[in-house]
């Protein structure tokens, strides 16, 4: 037993290491596009991991997870839009701290309200009601003419993470009250806001490094993925996570043991929403663009697909799923514009023959 789990841990570490290093190797080989692919991969892995807290741990098949990506992304897009073109001074800012705070609170609130209603239902009703709420967000965003409606909104600059007291001479202050936010594992970042790409090679000393620099941004995404995985893993094995897992298997019994799973599930719903919002925050920064199409139900479906493809039993399942999804999409679409055909066949095959997802197949393999 122990031997196998150690092996898996090593395998997981290796996988993360490969994901971390590949784009840099490709960069070194003169193929900068891979940094883009892997950034997208890591951001989707964050979203899928957040969904796996609901889907794999708590057994709650939320079909509206894309809504949080959209909310997190617009929490970047709208303040940047106002800061660039004027208006709503209370909202306008380039500050990443402000974007995060805004995105996290909006997502938490939305998850709290919709979760409180959705969690009254079960099974397929839950799937459909979460999708319904997501569709409402979609049409709300489409109706926001000020922010481009269906066309979406360009994000002119990436979120700025300079701390007000660290700013260099000449840097503007960003209108954010000095909220004492816990520092994530971010490289301290500083850049005067209107100066576009500047830094060429990684300087070893810390400031000033900008998120506009693709590799810095990639490292940020990767660090956040590790953070999310770490937290999800912690939660999964905590008292809290044990309740979620038990309720997934046998809700009746959980109640008969004196626990009403509702509030635990609601909290999980909120946490997952916040993490998905985090991936939305990264998405807006990655794409320099937000649009309602981020909230379409097919995106929620893709996230589900990633989680299940990777395997619901493992922490790294969603990471594997997101990697396979993104890379397959990339290579198949390069072979033919009709790549949805082999992709659909593959989906069928995975479901029909590959129970437990890719990780499940690996486990069976190593247990034999």
């Amino acid at each position: 037993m122990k031997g196998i789990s150690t092996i898996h841990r090593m395998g997981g570490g290796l996988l993360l290491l490969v994901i971390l290093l590949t784009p840099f190797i490709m960069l070194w080989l003169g193929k900068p596009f891979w940094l883009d692919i892997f950034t997208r991969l890591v951001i989707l892995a964050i979203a899928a991991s957040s969904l796996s807290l609901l889907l794999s741990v708590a057994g709650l098949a939320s079909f509206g997870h894309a809504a949080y990506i959209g909310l997190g992304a617009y929490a970047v897009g709208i303040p940047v839009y106002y800061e660039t073109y004027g208006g709503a001074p209370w909202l306008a800012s380039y500050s990443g701290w402000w974007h995060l705070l805004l995105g996290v609170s909006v997502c938490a609130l939305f998850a709290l309200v919709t979760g409180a209603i959705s969690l009254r239902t079960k099974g397929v009703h839950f799937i459909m009601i979460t999708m319904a709420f997501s569709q409402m967000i979609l049409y709300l965003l489409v109706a926001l003419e000020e922010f481009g409606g269906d066309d979406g909104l360009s994000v002119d600059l990436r979120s700025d993470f300079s701390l007000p007291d660290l700013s260099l001479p000449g840097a503007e202050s960003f209108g954010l009250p000095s909220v004492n936010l816990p520092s994530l594992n971010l490289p301290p970042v500083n850049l005067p806001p209107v100066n576009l790409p500047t830094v060429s090679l990684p300087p070893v000393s810390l400031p000033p490094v900008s998120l506009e620099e693709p590799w810095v941004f990639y490292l940020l995404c990767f660090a956040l993925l590790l953070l999310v995985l770490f937290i999800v893993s912690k939660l999964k094995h905590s008292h809290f996570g044990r309740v979620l897992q038990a309720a997934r298997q046998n809700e009746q019994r959980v109640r008969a043991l004196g626990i009403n799973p509702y509030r635990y599930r609601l909290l999980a719903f909120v946490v997952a929403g916040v993490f998905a919002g985090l991936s939305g925050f990264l998405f807006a920064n990655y794409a320099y663009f937000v649009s309602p199409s981020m909230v379409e139900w097919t995106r929620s479906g893709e996230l589900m697909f990633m989680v299940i493809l990777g395997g619901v039993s493992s922490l790294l399942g969603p990471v594997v799923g997101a990697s396979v999804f993104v890379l397959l999409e990339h290579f198949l679409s390069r072979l033919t514009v009709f790549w949805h055909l082999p992709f659909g066949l593959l989906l069928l095959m995975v479901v029909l023959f590959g129970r437990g997802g890719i990780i499940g197949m690996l486990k069976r393999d190593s247990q034999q």
Partner: protein
Amino acid sequence: MSVLKTDKLTKCFGGVVATDAVSLSLQDKRVHGLIGPNGAGKTTLIAQLAGQLKPDAGKILLNSRNITRLSEPARVRAGLTRTFQISSLFNDFSVQENVAFAVQANAGHSFRFWSNVSRNDDINDRAHELLELLGLSNKAGANASALSHGEQRQLEIAMALATKPSVLMLDEPMAGMGAEESLRLIQLLQELKHDTTLLLVEHDMDAVFALADDLSVLVNGALIASGNATDVRQNPDVIAAYLGTPA
């Protein structure tokens, strides 16, 4: 002293009266047997006591407190726990984890997010004790779904005990057990009644007569007799309606 009491508890499904004004009283630290033919409404009654079904009329009192409107989990926390006729386990958990979770459920709220629950010594020790008590220690690492039928019944009881009930309702605990397993369970229940009140629904009459201090007989949703086991067994109505031949 009466620990659990029902007052004219009534439940109908459509036109069928499943529970007909049942007034039952369980005495402290005694085993109360509940018997009756199939379809008499025993499981429906337990479900109402446990809070899974809402009665149409009547009251349920636990230690003189009216719990009729309490939710199922709240009743468990108040000390009223049940087991299931068909084993209801966490099939992806190991045997140890099943019991550990039941212990956790009874150890205050579970809004604890950071420490690894499988390394919590208090929980593990208590779970170990319970497994020992039910003779499942050697199966602790096995998956719950891999247990034999009898072992699953034992696990079911271990989990119920983990909630430290003041009243434990056992819905056909011996069903499907071998003779040896039944015997051990009877011994265990004998010991249990030193600190717990038991409501025992069972078809195995030998087990009921061996264990029950008091006895109630349910026929067509109504109690036709209730009281001291010896008295009830002599009750001519009971003999006529249910036991058939004098025991």
